[in-house]
C-alpha cells in the first residue's frame, strides 16, 4: 500500500497497484460533526476526477464526497452505510468510502502529501 495522498476537498487516497482506496479525512469529520448517513457508490460506476461519488450527512448538513481521482468503482464500503457513526471513529482506517480502479497514476501523484495537506488545513480554516 502506498502513502496516503490528500485532496483540497478533504479526501484521502491510498494506492495498491492500480486500485485506489478513498475516504474522508479526520479533519473533514471534525468539521462535519456527528455523521448520521452515508451513501456509497455501487461497483461498476465510472467516476471523474473531482466528480461526485458519495454522500455524507452529519446532524447539521449533507455534503458530497468527491473522488480525487478518476476510474471505475470496484467496491463501496457497505459497513459505513450501515453504521455511519463509525466514520467519526476511524475515518482514515476501516471507514474508507470506496475503492476504484484508476486510469491515470499521474492524478494520484499530483495530490498533496500529508505535510502539504496539514499546512493546507491550517491556512484554510473553516
Amino acid at each position, binding site marked *: 500500500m502506498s502513502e496516503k495522498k490528500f485532496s483540497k476537498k478533504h479526501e484521502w487516497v491510498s494506492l495498491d497497484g492500480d486500485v485506489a482506496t478513498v475516504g474522508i479525512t479526520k479533519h473533514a469529520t471534525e468539521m462535519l*460533526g*456527528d455523521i*448520521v*448517513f452515508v*451513501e456509497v457508490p455501487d461497483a461498476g460506476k465510472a467516476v471523474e476526477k473531482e466528480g461526485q461519488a458519495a*454522500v455524507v*450527512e*452529519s*446532524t*447539521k448538513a*449533507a455534503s458530497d464526497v468527491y473522488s480525487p481521482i478518476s476510474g471505475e468503482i470496484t467496491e463501496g464500503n457497505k459497513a459505513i*452505510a450501515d453504521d*455511519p457513526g463509525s466514520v467519526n471513529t476511524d475515518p482514515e482506517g476501516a471507514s474508507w468510502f470506496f475503492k476504484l480502479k484508476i486510469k491515470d497514476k499521474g492524478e494520484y501523484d499530483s495530490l498533496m502529501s500529508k505535510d502539504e495537506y496539514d499546512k493546507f488545513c491550517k491556512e484554510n480554516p473553516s
Partner: protein
Amino acid sequence: MEVQKTALYNYHKNLGAKFVPFAGYEMPIQYKDGIVKEHISTRTHAGFFDVSHMGQFFLEGDETLIDSLEKIIPADLKNLKINHSKYSFLLNNEGGIIDDLIITRTEKGFCIILNAACKENDIKQISQFLTKNHKYLLNNDLSLIALQGPKSVEILEKLIPGVADLKFMTGNNFQHESENLYVTRSGYTGEDGFEISISNKKVEKLIDYLISNKVNPIGLGARDTLRLEAGLCLYGHDLNEKINPIEANLKWAIAKKRKEVGGFNGWEKIKNLLANGSEKIRVGIKPNGKVIARENTKIFSSDNNEIGFVTSGTFGPSVNAPVAMGYIKSEYSEIGTSIQLEVRGKKYGGKISELPFYKKSYVK
C-alpha cells in the same frame, strides 16, 4: 444591522461554542461535545440553553388589555389564571401565523415570549390593538435560560427552593441573591424542565452553578433535534404567515371558547376550516431507512403524485433514526400511509408517523 450578542456570549466562547448567525444574533450551534452528545445528555441528565435572543415582552394595563390581546391571540386570556401559561399564536387577517408564542398571565398583565426573528414585527402587530391605557416593554435587560432534562428539578430546587412545586406551564416569582426571578416549568425539548428569566448581571452566576452540577451547555443544533423528536414546530420552517393553525395541526392550541365565539383575526377562515378540514396538514414522517429528508424534500404518494414537502428533517439521536415533519394533502395524512421522499433525485420510502417521535415527560 449590527450582529447582536446575548449577555453570555463570552461565556459560551470560553465553553468552546461554535457560533452561527441566527435571527440577527451570534448564537452557539454546538459546543465541544457535538450535537448528538448534547442531545443525549439533555434526555438523560440535564442541559441548559441560552435563549436570551427570544423576546421577553411585558404588557400592563386596565381591564381592556385582555380584549385588545384577544383580537390577535386566540387563547382564552379572560380565564387564564395568574402564573399560568398557554402556547398560542399571533394571527393575521387570513388566520396565518405571524408568530407562535408562550403567554403567561402576570399580576399586572401578561408576559409573552416571542421568537427572536419575529419579535420586532410582533410588537408592531400587537401594538396596533393597544390603547393609551396599555403599556408595553420588550425587556432586553433580562436573560432567559432554559434548563431541560430529568435532573433539572433536583438541581434547580437546591438553588431556588420551591420550583419543584410548579406544574407544567405554570410559573412564579422567586427570591434569589436578593433579586426577583421569574421561573416557569416549561421548555421546548419534550423533557421536564424550567425557563428562568434572570437579569443579565446575574446570569453568569446561575450558569456557574448549573455547570458545577454537570449540566451541559446545549447549542441550537441539539435544540433542533430535541424539539423535532418532541414534534414541536419551529417558526420560519414549520410555521409561517401563510400557514394557519388548522393546517399546522395545532387546533388544540386555540381555546375551545374562542373557537365557538371567535372575535380574533382570521376567525371566519378558521371556523370554516374547523368545519370542513384543510386541504393540507402538518404530519410526522419517518423515512424507512437511514436517509435524512431535510427541509424542502418533495413528498410523493406511492403512485408517484407529488403530495407535499418536508419543513424540518434531521437525525433523531434518541429515536436513533431519521425523523421529519412536513405538509401533505390531507387525504394522505393517516398514520401509517406509505409515501416516497425525493432526496438527491432518488425516491426513498417512508411512512406518515405519529407525533411526537419521542414520548414527552412533562410534570402535570
